[in-house]
């Protein structure tokens, strides 16, 4: 509402105090700081009964805390660790965890609530003003310190004896190199380790779930099979590191549906084998859409078309999944016809 709509009698100064209006004390400057408002008493300050009620509330909260701690000890001793209870609406919970947590929570919360209630209702709530002092030193102090510093610097003769100064800086600059050197053995140099996996010519494709070598007939159209190279067992010392590169996924497509020429060449009866490790940042790809032959990485949703050389069709991955060339050996088992031709997993500077 603009001031045009207000008749003079309703303008602030015209209004009388009977209508709840407040007068401005300082006529000269109505915006001046009126100073701290007067202290308003709480009911506990004037009514001893109310104060005693507050006292009882605080004491009751502290007592609740004591009881809850006893409850914690009792729960710890009596509840079996494997007992589970149903708590509506949360569901099934470990009884021990529920009881210990709640009793501990109540014991702590009640102490806090008691202390805060005590502070709010019984301790003085008079506001006090304290002076601030500027952080900066006074000019006298500053002059004194600078003079002291000059005196100290002069006495050290650092500025005069340049040889000492320069060699000292040299020594201080060099010695951290020892610390850097010590970091060298944190790990071996990469070499070509990221370029090779356990796969090599003649290695059988072993089903990850059954631990049996795969035959072409084991791979049905529309299914996604995970495989590892023969000889790599879970209890091998370097299993984790090797499977991190060698993990393979196998699908069977209709050979007519394979659009990529090299993919078709490297397949066997429509069975294609691709690295399971996403070329984005290395998550294992695990979602397969059988109608479209797309696989999706669940971490960052990179999507690859397995019928077209596993090229990237969506998401943040930068290049296609490497394909493993496969065939069938004399006994009718699927075998690798070599290692991956390019590094598996995320790209890196030396990948090229």
């Amino acid at each position, binding site marked *: 509402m603009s001031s045009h709509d207000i008749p003079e009698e309703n303008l602030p100064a015209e209004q009388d105090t009977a209508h709840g209006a407040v007068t401005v004390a300082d006529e000269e400057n109505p915006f001046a700081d009126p100073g701290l408002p007067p202290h308003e008493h709480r009911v506990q300050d004037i009514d001893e009964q109310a104060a005693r009620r507050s006292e009882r509330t605080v004491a009751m909260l502290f007592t609740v805390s004591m009881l809850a701690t006893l409850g914690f000890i009792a729960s710890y001793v009596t509840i079996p660790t494997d007992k589970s209870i149903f708590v509506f609406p949360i569901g099934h919970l470990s009884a021990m965890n529920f009881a210990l947590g709640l009793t501990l929570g109540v014991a702590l919360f009640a102490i806090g609530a008691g202390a805060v209630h005590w502070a709010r209702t019984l301790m003085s709530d008079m506001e006090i003003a304290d002076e601030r002092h500027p952080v900066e030193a006074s000019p006298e102090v500053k002059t004194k310190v600078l003079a002291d510093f000059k005196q100290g610097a002069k006495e050290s003769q650092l500025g005069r004896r340049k040889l000492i100064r320069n060699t000292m800086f040299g020594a201080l600059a060099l010695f951290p190199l020892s610390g850097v050197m010590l970091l060298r053995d*944190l790990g071996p140099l990469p070499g070509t380790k990221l370029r090779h996996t356990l796969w090599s010519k003649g290695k059988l494709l072993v089903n990850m779930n059954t631990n049996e070598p795969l035959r072409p007939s084991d791979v049905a159209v529309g299914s996604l099979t995970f495989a590892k190279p023969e000889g790599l067992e879970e209890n091998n010392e370097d299993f984790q590191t090797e499977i991190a590169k060698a993990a393979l996924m196998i699908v069977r497509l209709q050979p007519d549906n394979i659009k990529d020429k090299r993919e078709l060449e490297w397949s066997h009866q429509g069975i294609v084998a691709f690295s399971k490790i996403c070329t984005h940042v290395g998550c294992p790809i695990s979602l397969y859409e059988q109608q479209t032959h797309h696989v999706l990485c669940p971490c960052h949703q990179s999507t690859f078309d397995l019928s077209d050389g596993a090229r990237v069709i969506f998401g943040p991955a930068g290049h296609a999944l490497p394909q493993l060339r496969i065939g069938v050996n004399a006994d009718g088992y699927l075998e690798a016809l070599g290692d991956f031709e390019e590094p598996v997993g995320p790209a890196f500077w030396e990948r090229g």
Partner: protein
Amino acid sequence: MSTASTNPNPAGDAAGGSRGRAPAGERLADWADGRLGVYTLAKSNMRKIFPDHWSFMLGEVCLYSFLIIILTGVYLTLFFHPSMNEVVYHGSYVPLQGQMMSEAFNSTLHISFDVRGGLLIRQIHHWAALVFLAGMFVHMMRVFFTGAFRKPREINWVFGFLLFVLGMFTGFTGYSLPDDLLSGTGVRFMEGAILSVPIVGTYLSFFLFGGQFPGGDFVARFYSIHILLLPGIMLGLVVGHLILVVYHKHTQFAGPGKTNNNVVGMPLMPVYMAKAGGFFFLVFGVIAAVAAIAQINPIWAIGPYRPDQVSTGAQPDWYMGFSEGLIRVMPGWEVNFWGHTLVLGVFIPLVIFPLVLVAIAVYPFIEAWVTGDRREHHILDRPRNAPTRTAFGAAWISWYFVLLVGGGNDLWATHFHLSINAITWFVRIAFFVVPVLVFIAAKRICLGLQRRDRDKVLHGRESGIIKRLPHGEFIEVHEPLSQEQLHTLTSHEQYQPVEIGPTVDENGVERKIKGSEKLRSKLSGAYYGDANQIPKPTVDEYKELTSGHGHH
């Protein structure tokens, strides 16, 4: 502080007096004073004044959750084995019987199922970490929007910022320790991100993991980083942060009796000892209760880490979510040249990740440069009275949240039946557009609120009372404000935009104007120019309206 009590109770006095000696507490304090100077220390601090405002407790939430994390963390180290040796599980959780897993995972299962209360402490530790990070985020925003970062508190702002960043990495290394399938996937993501660094990425990765991923070292290395290196630095920063809070004395909002040269509130002893001390118990109690009923990071349901396995809906803890968003929506650019690969699709997000945080961290210094103000500021701004700052902060938050949406694009897709492609494209565009829109909207809102304050001061508060005048007109009665309110609404400072000044000196010689000077003048205009702040009412304006002789 109880040992430093100088308030002997009358009974103690009498008892002590009868033997001619001071009460025991006082004697103890004397002993300590002779060695530590406790009386001098207590003189300035025991009755130290702290102003009261609900937003000042946000920092306390952080401090207390940090203490809770340390307490529960020490307990967890008593049972946790930071080793990646593979063992076969024989514990009491039946579904995983006979499974191969690392000792780290095995001992985490032991803590969760066989140590009584172990699960509770694990869950308190993890919940407190989430509260710590969330608390720091909100506390930082409080400091930002009220301008509490201004001189003399810039260094404390930087301390707080470092605590936030280090807290993120302490959290990341912490939730990676159990070596479960989810966190292992996160560590692998980290490896992929490190590999993308040009020239040295492969070497960094091999040095961090002691060879190829995952190797057998990273849990032990993360462990020493998580329990010693980072928390040690953070503890130092927290102590420094608190010392500076005490040294600078707390900021306060404008109000009657409050000036830039005083601090109005209640004393540490007894009020804030009880309130702040009690608040520690409140925070701890709430987190313990949450840990009792809300399961967090159930590693037994996730299973041990295997590099060839993954679960859907893999998400980092929330504070890492914005970096996850960056990595998810970035197009997969790879540049191959001269036998090398520049993995821009991963490296660019890796570079933007710290830049998002630095953008807010450097703001105080930019504002100080634009205003050129070298005075100390102890009175907080209301966000509306600093529209450009508020708009910048709001834009930054919107940027952060756009990235959080990107980090959870799969969850948005499944929960709201949206196309993941559409969400990704939305985030890609919103990354650039939303902060600009939010900046404009927030600034308009601030200016609108400034206009309302101005109206309120000049014309009073809308009372809601409708009055009919003798000639039939209806008007709303406006109540004038009290002097307290008038003062509070008009005490903020308004800067004038910086002028470049005459470009020709008194001898008619043209002065060279530096580019930085021009930029500063331009920014200053954008901050404090005509359309960018509403002039606050002056006493004259007020008097003219209230005297009844105005020409309105």
